[in-house]
């Protein structure tokens, strides 16, 4: 009997009138935990009852404490008939189970009814007494902390980052049980809410056990999702990153890690077992299993693309030589950095990390985005206790991701996430992440903070190290353009970089970033079962390809060269597929300057057509120029001699790695590599292509004073003020079913997203200057002709004047830095080849260039004219052919105008740490802030109170009376916010960080005047203190190293 749960019901207020005769209510409360129920007295004739009950005590196992929610039901007493339920409150008592979080839950909770919404509030006090449990074989995992935040929580220090943990549990969906035919909608909804709550608890407990097994004490980046598979059941699954965290005790520690004196940090006392046992039983290759299941359990593996930015390849798992190479490379990389290779070679089944931001020095190199998708046919889950099918599905996908990462020369995947899209019996499973090379010391005994940093900096110049390619340039898994890093010029970098993570804090960025979206619809024939799944899987590669092309085009149009926070969502509907990719584009100083976009017509004979083309060309060039100005992209120019010639393509580039997946021929031929510095050629040979070009230009930039990004913070803005506004916006459009074409569909979808963004800018105009951060779009297709888009984001104000100042100082700084770097380079020219393998001595640049030339398909005459601007037209053509965008001969003249060899210099390191701002005085009592970010501008998080993970169902049979669908959903979302805030306040918190609305499933039946909606939200409840209140403490801290960018950060200095 390891725990005693104590509950006291204090009072109620604003109760609804339940007795029409007296206009009053005779309310009492049932308190239920597990199978035990207590009741309060009936408080007669009052809408504001004062029960002041005794302490109800439940003596329970800690396993139950973790799984079960506390269920409080408010009822109206009726002498003659059955008591009427007013509503319920579910309280997750998990935050009370670990010592550092909340000690008591006490406050006003909205009383919620799935049919009527919030009906009054109830004041409850909950406490838990935990007894020590010495049982080694316990099933509970009390004490493991959970965080939704995808970085190391602000007031903790990571001692060890253990790695990936995952779990899933399945059950039958109560909505589809036979009993649902005879019970009320309310009973059915409540059964569902309760079941999901139970399953979430169980899932969390099981994950906790795995963490304890790994000797960790926390899960960071915990993401729990549920899949409503309909008839076939309900799946609740979660992934996260197991860590060992240490609480930082003094407020001093809240300052960014770089200045806390951590040298004396002792090696972790925890001996680390070599195997990370979470899934060690899966030692047979998954692929064989796939085949055998095909009969009952149809599954199609989709050939995947690796988004490195430059290209994709269907990266496969090749045999011996490749692996050897990889090992060699990783090893050399590790040796170079002084780590011992054997440590890294531990057997780690899935070296995945759900984190998107890392302690300094953790991330060594970034390879590119890896993603995998698979189409499955759902089948009834026969035995809920053995969720093996779903487990195997995910294991398969993860395996694929892992191999993609390997192909990129990376041993880990960061910023990892998983998602599903379900329509009827078809399910698309998706996983994506960023292949990366990590500093192995962090994974074991490394400490997060400074002690490692210095050593790393010896090898890795700050702000560009992560851009350097982790793969071997001579054996690249895909064709790519490499140049020497524009920052350190010692190592090689790709021309474009795509990632799913946040911008590393030490990254050097020029100008500001912006939100980029690729949107795409594809019609699909309605089909059943296998035929449907096959149709979908045939479409998927094309969609991925087009999404990638759009992203690339838009990136070029913005004059930028890297994407962060890339999230590609593919949604399946009855008769269409939707793709939506969002990312934050930035100009990384370490990467080369992107070339322009050039348009080519197919029929040059036609004069008016030519004119049209040149008109379009002008428009595009103008847009690029305008964007550069808008986002302040003006990297300092550096003459070409300093840079050195671009590195030519390696001879081996023709060696394309092919996917092993059963994809069609065209797909494996996909070569997404885009021209490097050359103008990027788009050919317009039919209306489709024309549309594509037009759609490029329809994206209007946000109005002045507005910025937007989907990452935590906006690159280039560092002086946030404290006003924040989190919001959710939902739109559903009905497509006219007549003559629906892909083109019309695309336009509709594009307009939907653009109009939504425009509306947001308009609504939030009073906050200007401000930035929309963490803009998260979710698309779903609830019915045949309906498209639903849900956006959650936070608007944060910033100080414009300070922004300007900082930029200036940074440019000055960077110029200085650039010149010193140049000197260095001249002194040590040999370092240029440090990255190449010893067996391939690096030839002098010019010579290499020539050899590559002769290999490429450019006619000699052209080569002569383009010596200075190495162009690789042939590479453009290989992919363009596929979607009728054929590369034409690049016009030299235009290249000369669009391409100037420029070099960006390191600048603005520490830009993003400095979020201090003049504090705002308007903090009022009782306000609970909500934000999808992991921090609160102008404030320090002093305590994490526990995870908030809530699931609600709302249903109505009087849709018109509740203001139609908009009125219904508006009220429901407002109520969800209210319930989240109430729970946080009851835990003693004043904010939710890393808030996310994971699901918003909306179904309507206007003919029956009915609608139903399911919402799942999560986040971390925290206590924050305004920086102004901490000022006294922080001024006493040594601020020497940190926050160089204090130009705007007067608070701490």
């Amino acid at each position, binding site marked *: 009997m390891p725990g005693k749960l104590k509950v006291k019901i204090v009072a109620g207020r604003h109760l609804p009138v339940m007795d029409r005769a007296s206009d009053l209510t005779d309310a009492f409360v049932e308190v239920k935990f597990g199978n035990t129920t207590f009741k309060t007295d009936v408080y007669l004739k009052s809408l504001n009852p004062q029960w002041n009950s005794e302490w109800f005590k439940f003596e329970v196992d800690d396993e139950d404490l973790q799984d079960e929610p506390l269920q409080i039901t408010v009822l109206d007493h009726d002498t003659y008939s059955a008591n009427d339920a007013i509503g319920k409150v579910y309280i997750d008592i998990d935050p009370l189970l670990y010592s550092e979080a909340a000690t008591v839950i006490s406050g006003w909770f909205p009383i919620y009814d799935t049919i009527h919404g919030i009906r009054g509030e109830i004041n409850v006090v909950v406490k838990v007494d935990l007894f020590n449990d010495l049982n080694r074989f316990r099933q509970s995992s009390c004490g493991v902390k959970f965080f939704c935040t995808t970085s190391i929580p602000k007031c903790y220090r990571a001692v060890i980052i253990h790695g990936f943990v995952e779990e899933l549990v399945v059950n039958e969906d109560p909505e589809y049980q036979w009993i649902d035919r005879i019970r009320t909608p309310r009973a059915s909804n409540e059964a569902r809410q309760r079941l999901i709550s139970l399953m979430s608890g169980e899932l969390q407990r099981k994950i906790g056990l795995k963490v304890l097994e790994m000797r960790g004490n926390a899960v960071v980046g915990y993401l729990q999702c549920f899949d409503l598979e309909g008839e076939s059941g309900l799946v609740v699954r979660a992934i996260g990153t197991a860590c060992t965290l240490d609480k930082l005790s003094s407020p001093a520690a809240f300052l960014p890690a770089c200045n806390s004196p951590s040298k004396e940090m002792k090696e972790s006392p925890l001996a680390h077992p070599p195997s990370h046992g979470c899934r060690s039983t899966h030692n047979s290759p998954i692929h064989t299993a796939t085949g055998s299941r095909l009969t009952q359990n149809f599954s199609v593996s989709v050939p995947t693309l690796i988004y490195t930015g430059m290209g994709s390849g269907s990266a496969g798992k090749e045999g011996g030589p490749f692996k050897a190479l990889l090992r060699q490379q990783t090893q050399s990389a590790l040796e170079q950095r002084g780590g011992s290779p054997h440590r890294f070679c531990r057997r780690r089944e899935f070296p995945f990390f759900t984190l998107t931001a890392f302690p300094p020095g953790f991330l060594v190199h970034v390879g590119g985005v890896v993603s995998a998708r698979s189409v499955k046919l759902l089948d009834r889950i026969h035995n809920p206790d053995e969720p093996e099918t779903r487990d195997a599905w995910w294991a398969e996908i993860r395996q694929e991701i892992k191999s993609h990462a390997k192909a990129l020369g990376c041993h880990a995947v960061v910023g990892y996430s998983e998602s599903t899209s379900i329509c009827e019996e078809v399910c698309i499973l998706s996983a994506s992440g960023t292949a990366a090379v990590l500093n192995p010391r962090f994974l074991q005994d490394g400490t997060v903070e400074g002690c490692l940093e210095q050593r790393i900096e010896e090898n890795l110049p700050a702000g560009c190290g992560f851009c350097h390619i982790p793969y071997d340039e001579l054996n690249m898994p895909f064709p790519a353009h490499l140049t020497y890093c524009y920052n350190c010029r010692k190592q090689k970098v790709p021309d474009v970089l795509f990632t799913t993570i946040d911008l590393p804090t030490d990254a050097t960025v020029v100008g500001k970033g912006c939100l980029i979206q690729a949107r795409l619809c594809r019609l699909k024939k309605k089909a059943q079962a296998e035929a449907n799944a096959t149709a979908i899987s045939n479409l998927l590669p094309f969609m991925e390809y087009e999404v990638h092309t759009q992203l690339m085009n838009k990136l070029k149009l913005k004059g930028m060269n890297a994407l962060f926070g890339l999230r590609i969502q593919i949604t399946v509907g009855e008769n269409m597929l939707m793709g939506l990719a969002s990312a934050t584009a930035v100009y990384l100083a370490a990467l080369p300057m992107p070339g322009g976009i050039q348009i080519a017509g197919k029929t040059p004979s036609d004069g008016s057509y030519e004119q049209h083309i040149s008109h379009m060309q002008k428009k595009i060039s103008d847009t690029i120029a305008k964007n550069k100005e808008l986002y302040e992209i003006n990297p300092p120019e550096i003459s070409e001699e300093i840079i050195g010639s671009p590195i030519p393509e390696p001879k081996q580039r023709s060696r394309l790695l092919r996917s092993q997946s059963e994809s069609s021929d065209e797909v494996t031929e996909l070569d997404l590599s885009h021209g490097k510095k050359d103008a990027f050629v788009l050919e317009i040979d039919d209306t489709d292509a024309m549309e594509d070009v037009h759609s490029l230009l329809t994206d209007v930039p946000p109005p002045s004073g507005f910025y937007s990004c989907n990452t935590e913070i906006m690159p280039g803005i560092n002086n946030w003020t404290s006003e924040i506004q989190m*919001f*959710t916006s939902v739109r559903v459009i009905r497509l006219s079913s007549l003559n629906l074409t892909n083109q019309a569909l695309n336009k509709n979808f594009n307009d939907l997203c653009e109009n939504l963004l425009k*509306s947001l800018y*308009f*609504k939030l105009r009073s906050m200007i200057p401000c930035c929309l951060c963490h803009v998260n779009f979710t698309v779903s297709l609830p019915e045949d002709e309906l498209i639903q888009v849900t956006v959650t984001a936070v608007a944060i104000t910033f100080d414009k004047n300070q922004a300007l100042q900082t930029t200036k100082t940074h440019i000055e700084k960077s110029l200085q830095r650039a010149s010193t770097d140049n000197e260095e380079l001249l002194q040590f020219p040999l370092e240029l080849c440090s990255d190449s393998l010893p067996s391939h001595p690096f030839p002098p640049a010019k010579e290499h260039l020539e050899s590559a030339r002769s290999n490429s398909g450019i006619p000699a005459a052209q080569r002569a004219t383009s010596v200075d601007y190495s162009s690789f037209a042939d590479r453009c053509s290989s992919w363009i052919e596929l979607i009728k965008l054929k590369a034409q001969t690049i016009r030299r003249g235009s290249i000369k105008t669009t391409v100037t060899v420029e070099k960006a210099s390191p600048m603005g390191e520490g830009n993003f740490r400095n979020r201090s701002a003049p504090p705002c005085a308007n903090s*009022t009592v009782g306000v609970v802030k909500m934000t999808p970010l992991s921090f609160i501008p102008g404030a320090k998080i002093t305590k994490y109170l526990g995870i908030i993970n809530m699931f609600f169902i709302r249903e109505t049979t009087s849709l018109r009376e509740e203001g139609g669908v908009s009125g219904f959903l*508006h009220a429901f979302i407002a109520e969800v916010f209210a319930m989240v805030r109430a729970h946080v306040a009851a835990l003693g918190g004043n904010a939710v960080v890393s808030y996310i609305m994971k699901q918003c499933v909306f179904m309507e039946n206007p003919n029956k005047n009915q609608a139903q909606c399911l919402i799942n939200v999560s986040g971390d409840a925290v206590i924050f203190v305004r920086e102004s209140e901490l000022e006294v403490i922080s001024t006493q801290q040594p601020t020497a190293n940190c926050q160089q960018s204090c130009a705007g950060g007067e608070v701490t200095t």
Partner: protein
Amino acid sequence: MTSELDIFVGNTTLIDEEVYRLWLDGYSVSDAVALRVRAGILEQTGATAAVLQSDTMDHYRTFHMLERLLHAPPKLLHQLVFQIPPSRQALLIERYYAFDEAFVREVLGKKLSKGTKKDLDDISAKTGITLKSCRRQFDNFKRVFKVVEEMRGSLADNIQQHFLFSDRLARDYAAIVFFANNRFETAKKKLQYLSFGDFAFCAELMIQNWTLGAVDSQVDDMDMDLDKEFLQDLKELKVLVADKDLLDLHKSLVCTALRGKLGVFSEMEANFKPPAPQNLSRGLVNVAAKLTHNKDVRDLFVDLVEKVHLGPQFVEPCRSDHWPLGDVRLFLNQYSVTVHSLDGFRHQALWDRYMDTLRGCLLRLYHD
């Protein structure tokens, strides 16, 4: 492509003051959009009409949801669904309960009944205020009335406590409730020149001095009902005009005191003469004596302003003689103070309770 559903929910509820005003004024969404377009918002922000439409709809929906809470403002403060900063809450309440001068003049003193509500379309047509807005204002009056009637304590305080109004608005509502309760006639043509502010001022004075609350603060409805006993007693004041000696003495004392100080002395002196139909003193005293009957109480303001068959009344005669306001004040002060020197007059306290208030009212009502 049609928008089926379009919502925006902020953690902090966004309140657009401009749209709130349009909503309160009773404009439909399309009218509000048109008005916003006319105000040049599209040019200022570069937004499209569709964006404006969506934004307006959204705000209207929010206001519609808030309206239920605004009916009991303390609920707005304690509810958990909409997170609204206190200053914004105050603004929402204050604006919701604000009323149009033109409207309040139409219903001031009328019974807040269904009958009056039926006349709202006439009022709407007459004032140019939308019917919707008229209904809201009327319902507000009625709601406040219902809540505070039969309540103990100061009327304005009760209103403030239950509706969280600012001082000023609470006092205005106290006046509205007081007028509605006592059904003072305010709609007569002769009274049209008076503003709501004039009446509210009088109401405040009357509440202070003439109600039950002025003598006993432990009674229900103490500020709403006039003190019946006091009104009965006012008959005693008749002696001031009925007793010729007393009247003459009063007159001579006032005249002596004011001689040379009053620009309109001769007119005043003339009006003081007993047989003259326009006897100021008689007018003032007669008004007092009439207040025993409910119907006459209702006509208080008419009597004060207009000449009726009963005899010479006050404001109109003075105005027709073009008395400056200063002279009126001097006269009234002297007139009421002098009564204390009349040895034969025994109702000094009653006189003060009556005259202090009446003097204040008269001075306020005395304008063009």
